[in-house]
């Protein structure tokens, strides 16, 4: 059940460390029921690290049993994060050996470059942007890191795919990205521009390439708005912290967004973040507030929110692809390979029925 005090504490956690975010911590511990709600929400929203930070700073009072619950949640999140870090080192080693340029995206990269302490950012999987998806999948496959689904059709991943999901022996999912979002905005984003990577961080003595602050912000905005689910707390906090970075160059952010025809995405993500986190106004938050959507931007954004998200995104993607690519894209989606259907537990007849229902609408 929703509880106003739990909502307030959770909102303050999402804004933790952002410029101007208020921190209305309650005096005295929450009730055990409220605590249980808060910890559960932090687990699903990947905010356990933030919760434990305010406990360790003694900003939030807790009873002994509440502390024990938080510790258990933190231990679980920390163990998983370390397994993801191992997967990252394993992946980086394979890509380097194959001579493939790459950049680490999202959780582990942000934890080690933007967050005040890496333990404040929880993450469950790994996202890597690569210069060559096919070669990356081969290089990782040779190390036993196998893809979960077969390719839609030969050549689809490198021409149209957002990312290929693989899994290592420790069952950590690794998304190898060609671009940074699904659907039309993913096709319009020239993600290859982000390579070679602008900066790096070090993990267990290994230097790992990642994005600049401005590129992380644009990537985070795409994930927040186009990712498909209600924005996760950790992703909103990413945006709030990136916007609060003193070295952030607003003009570079806008130039990147303009170049990718993604101003609407960035503006919507910043507005969405500012609605949840009461931040100090910046040139970017002011710009986002005043950005007006064009009819084309609205139509593209709507394709991500439709009931049949997959079909709507596919149609919208067709509109932004060059003419010569449209037929290949359509035929791949209409007639995926048998192997792809098998890994998605679909028969060709049921796939065609589904397609037919969509075309009729």
């Amino acid at each position, binding site marked *: 059940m929703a509880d106003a005090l739990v909502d307030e504490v959770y909102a303050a956690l999402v804004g933790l460390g952002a410029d101007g975010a208020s921190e209305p911590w309650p005096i005295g511990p929450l009730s055990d029921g409220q605590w249980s709600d808060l910890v559960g929400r932090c687990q699903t929203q990947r905010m356990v690290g933030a919760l*434990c930070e305010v*406990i*360790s700073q003694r900003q939030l009072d807790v009873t002994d049993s509440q*502390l024990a619950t*938080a*510790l258990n949640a*933190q*231990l679980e999140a*920390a*163990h998983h*994060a*370390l*397994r993801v*870090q*191992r997967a990252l*080192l394993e992946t980086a080693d394979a890509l380097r050996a194959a001579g493939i340029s790459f950049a680490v995206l999202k959780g582990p990269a942000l934890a080690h470059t933007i967050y005040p*302490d*890496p*333990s404040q950012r929880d993450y469950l999987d790994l996202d890597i942007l690569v210069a060559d998806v096919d070669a990356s999948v081969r290089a990782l496959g040779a190390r036993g890191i196998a893809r979960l689904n077969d390719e839609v059709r030969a050549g689809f991943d490198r021409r149209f795919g957002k990312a290929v999901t693989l899994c290592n022996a*420790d069952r950590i999912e690794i998304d190898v990205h060609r671009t940074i979002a699904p659907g039309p905005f993913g096709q319009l984003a020239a993600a290859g521009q982000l390579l070679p990577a602008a900066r790096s961080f070090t*993990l*267990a*003595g*290994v230097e790992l390439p990642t994005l600049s602050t401005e590129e992380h912000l644009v990537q985070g905005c795409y994930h927040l708005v186009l990712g498909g689910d209600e924005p996760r707390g950790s992703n909103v906090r990413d945006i709030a912290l990136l916007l609060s970075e003193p070295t952030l160059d607003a003009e570079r952010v806008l130039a990147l967004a303009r170049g990718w025809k993604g101003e609407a995405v960035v503006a919507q993500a910043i507005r969405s973040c500012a609605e949840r986190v009461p931040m100090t106004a910046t040139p970017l938050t002011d710009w986002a507030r005043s950005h007006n959507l064009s009819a084309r931007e609205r139509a593209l954004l709507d394709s991500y929110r439709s009931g049949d998200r997959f079909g709507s995104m596919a149609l919208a993607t067709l509109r932004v692809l060059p003419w010569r690519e449209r037929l290949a894209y359509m035929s791949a989606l209409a007639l995926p390979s048998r192997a792809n259907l098998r890994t998605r537990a679909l028969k060709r007849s049921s796939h065609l029925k589904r397609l037919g229902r969509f075309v009729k609408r």
Partner: protein
Amino acid sequence: MIRRGAVLERRLLDGVLLMHARGSFEPIRLNGTAASIWYATAEPGDRAAIVARVAAMYGVAPSEIEASVDAALDELCADGVLLDG
């Protein structure tokens, strides 16, 4: 004493969680003093230097904690996260 390069770490409310970057997947949880000893090895140093750093953290004389720090260092070496020498 020097940390092995290929060790991953994550801070906890009551200590630190370590994991080897290769080999065993078993996490190593260090609480209280053991975690302080781990943090004291962030910069390499001989046993006496580590004892002195931990003593300074707790505001006690090195002689008071020397034996327990020595034992903990032995354990961290046995776990493969520290190298003696």
